[in-house]
């Protein structure tokens, strides 16, 4: 699902995988003024809290997910001079090594693209309503939120 009422913004919550080159080409299509593109991609790791993980299921809150991402993106647009922004988050069942999340930001200035991409990821981690349930060697287990993620997001207030 692609959903965004903001110009130059793509937000997609989807089950299917995405291709980084296609997403970056889309960010740069007819956009010859932004020479810098920074991307973040998150993948399913094989370990968490010492337990072997074989995959995970991603649940979200439809409607609120998109709204929360738009809010985060608007804040980034106010703080930095950035061009286009793309946020893709997959839902459903994912195996080890699969791509989970993509954040892409273009800018005329690489510093702005780096800062905005990191900011969006930091806030997505603590404000966007997604939940991971891991399939571990000890059965299914909802992931615990990390305190370090809250601290990371709060650093942007300084």
């Amino acid at each position: 699902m692609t959903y965004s009422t903001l110009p130059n913004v793509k937000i997609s919550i989807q089950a299917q995988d995405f291709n980084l080159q296609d997403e970056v080409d889309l960010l740069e299509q007819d956009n010859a003024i932004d020479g810098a593109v920074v991307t973040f991609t998150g993948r399913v790791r094989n370990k968490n809290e010492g337990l072997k993980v074989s995959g995970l299921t991603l649940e979200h809150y439809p409607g609120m997910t998109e709204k929360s991402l738009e809010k985060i993106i608007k804040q980034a647009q106010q703080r930095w001079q950035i061009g286009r922004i793309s946020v893709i988050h997959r839902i459903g069942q994912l195996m080890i090594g699969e791509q989970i999340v993509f954040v892409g930001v273009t800018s005329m200035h690489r510093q702005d693209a780096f800062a905005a991409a990191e900011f969006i990821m930091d806030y997505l981690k603590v404000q966007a309503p997604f939940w991971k349930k891991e399939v571990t060697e000890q059965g299914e287990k909802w992931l615990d939120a990390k305190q370090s993620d809250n601290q990371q997001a709060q650093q942007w207030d300084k």
Partner: protein
Amino acid sequence: MTENIMIKIVFFAALREQLDCSELQIAASEVKTISDIKAKLANKNEHWQQVFNNGALLSAINHDMVANDANVKSGDEVAFFPPVTGG
């Protein structure tokens, strides 16, 4: 009266599983804030009381994250869920 007199309550992730419930309705006349709703839900039985004792639970009204003292009104969609773990 033609207006919606109910508030829709939705639960997600571990909370939904603990309660074995994804959605319910309560009368808007009975509650004024998120805290009121939490107290009312905790009152259902001992199990729900235990679950709603979790101070880490997050709340949203109409898709916006809110604090416990936020006001609710008829027609609102109120959500409760554990701290988020996406990304």
